[in-house]
């Protein structure tokens, strides 16, 4: 994918008082992509987003929008009319839904004759066409956020910033809006930046992922790439790689590694994909959805790693259950409610866990002792 770069951020630094709250050496946004910023609360996602939107004074750094430097105030003001932002709080005006959706167009001096059809069309697309005359203060959380999104899309923004737009919605409202937003983003081919602390939201809407912590971007890459090949234990844990195994490389060759697990690992050996020298200490991550559970070792399976173990904990995780196992080392797997029942999974029960060598991802080779 070699699309034109829409926004180029270089060396962005923001200070709050004496404290540096953002330090991003480089970040690019390409045309038509949805970049998901992920990180825990306080990681700097909102700060980065405000900085990229030109709404926050930078201590240092530069922004280029479609190749043009955004330095002066008029340049930033002109940029503000080509992007827009939707916040966690819908921040609607105390007027009707229709007037809210029209607000940005009105600020641009667009006549009512042009505004009104656009307002109606976007209200329809977001499923709030029947609410146009309703006072904004009487809307439910989901309806209010749909109004805020219609107000944003009506502007035809060249970049759409979405700052945790689902965070204050209940589950059904969030689910419906995720579907609609995903569809509209795809239909319009919008360039967008979405911040979220939820990996499922990032996975559903994002094309690329940037994981943040303490005001820094730890890793940027394609969605699958970051989810499956996190470069660092924090990113791994944050993108849902629940099992992290540390050990020494016992043998390597042809892209395959044999990892002998360290303390607490009982000397078990795990086969993983990656390049490392024998004797090196490495970290391997396994996503819970890549671990299969069965009652006995399946000889026909292509899974190179199979470990008998005991169930220690079963935790509901939305539509799935997370099963935590003791196989001589910790292992987590996701199963459906049906599998849970069929396998009779309960704490204390015996089970065989298996995963392919390609599901065991090499995370990092250096500096592990200080990190893990």
């Amino acid at each position, binding site marked *: 994918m070699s699309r034109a770069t829409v926004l180029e951020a270089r060396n962005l630094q923001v200070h709050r008082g004496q404290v540096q709250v953002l330090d991003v050496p480089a970040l690019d946004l390409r045309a038509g992509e949805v970049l998901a910023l992920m990180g825990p609360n306080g990681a700097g996602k909102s700060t980065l987003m405000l900085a990229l939107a030109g709404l926050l004074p930078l201590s240092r750094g530069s922004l280029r929008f479609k190749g043009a430097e955004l330095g002066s105030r008029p340049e930033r003001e002109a940029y503000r009319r080509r992007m827009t932002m939707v916040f966690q709080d819908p921040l609607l005006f105390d007027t009707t839904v229709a007037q809210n959706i029209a607000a940005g167009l009105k600020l641009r001096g667009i006549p009512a004759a042009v505004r009104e059809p656009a307002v109606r069309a976007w209200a329809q697309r977001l499923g709030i066409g029947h609410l146009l005359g309703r006072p904004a203060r009487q809307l439910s959380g989901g309806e209010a956020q749909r109004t805020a999104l219609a107000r944003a899309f009506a*502007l035809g923004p060249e970049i759409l910033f979405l700052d945790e737009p689902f965070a204050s919605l209940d589950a059904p409202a969030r689910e419906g809006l995720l579907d609609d937003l995903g569809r509209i983003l795809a239909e319009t081919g919008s360039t967008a930046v979405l911040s979220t602390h939820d990996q499922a939201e990032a996975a559903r809407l994002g094309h690329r992922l940037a994981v943040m912590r303490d005001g820094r971007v730890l890793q940027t890459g394609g969605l699958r790439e970051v989810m499956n090949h996190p470069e660092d234990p924090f990113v791994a844990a944050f993108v849902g790689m629940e099992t992290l195994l540390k050990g020494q490389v016992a043998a390597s060759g042809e892209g395959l590694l044999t990892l002998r697990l360290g303390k607490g690992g009982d000397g078990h050996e795990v086969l993983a994909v990656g390049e490392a020298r024998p004797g090196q200490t490495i970290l391997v991550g396994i996503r819970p959805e890549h671990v299969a559970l069965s009652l006995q070792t399946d000889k026909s399976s292509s899974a190179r790693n199979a470990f008998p173990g005991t169930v220690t904990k079963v935790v509901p995780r939305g539509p799935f259950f997370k099963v935590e196992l003791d196989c001589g080392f910790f292992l987590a797997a996701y199963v459906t409610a049906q599998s849970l029942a069929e396998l009779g999974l309960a704490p204390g029960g015996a089970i065989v866990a298996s995963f392919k060598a390609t599901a065991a991802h090499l995370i990092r080779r250096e500096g592990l002792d200080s990190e893990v």
Partner: protein
Amino acid sequence: MDLIWEGLRKALELLLTLDPEVLRITLLSLEVSGLATLISLVIGLGIAVPVALNEFPGKRLVIALLNTGMGLPPVVVGLFVTVLLWRNGPFGFLEILYTPAAMILAQAVIASPIIAGISLSALQHLPPGLRLQILALGASRPQMVWLLLKEARLPLLAAVMAGFGGVISEVGASIMVGGNIKGQTRVLTTATVMETSKGNFEVAFALSILLLVLAFTVNAVLTHLQQRNRPR
């Protein structure tokens, strides 16, 4: 009780016969306090908007001063304005002491901090992200300020009502800088004080009732403005 009934009867009579002196006093009250409130609105917003929208050292001190100013005693204002406008005072050359202009000035000094203080708190109570949201919708700075004021219109009208209520009812400053001159600077409050001190209770009553009616009418109009188009 007779005093009260007599007062009400007399008041009604003065009102129904449209006593020219009473009418003049009432209109002057409305004019002086109305203009003072308008001037205070401009000054009050002129202070509240930049203080609310900017961070600067000493901001808390400014807010504390404004809040103190909301309780400025009218006699103290009267004293300072009198001294400033006194023939030999720094603004004596204006020759406006004992004119309605001096009363408007004094009342504006009283109402400005009231309107500034309440407006500031109104703006500070808007959702914290609203300003950024408005900018993100492409607003220029003046458009942003206008939209914020529109969002805060309810408490802003309350500020206007409080300012007007403060000055239509004050007597100390008006009597000091206006002098309660018949036909020139006599307003409802100063006339009430004078008639009471002369023992003309029924006239004082009549004037008081008029004052209440005037205050009520103006506030009813402002309340109507404030509450119209309010769903809920």
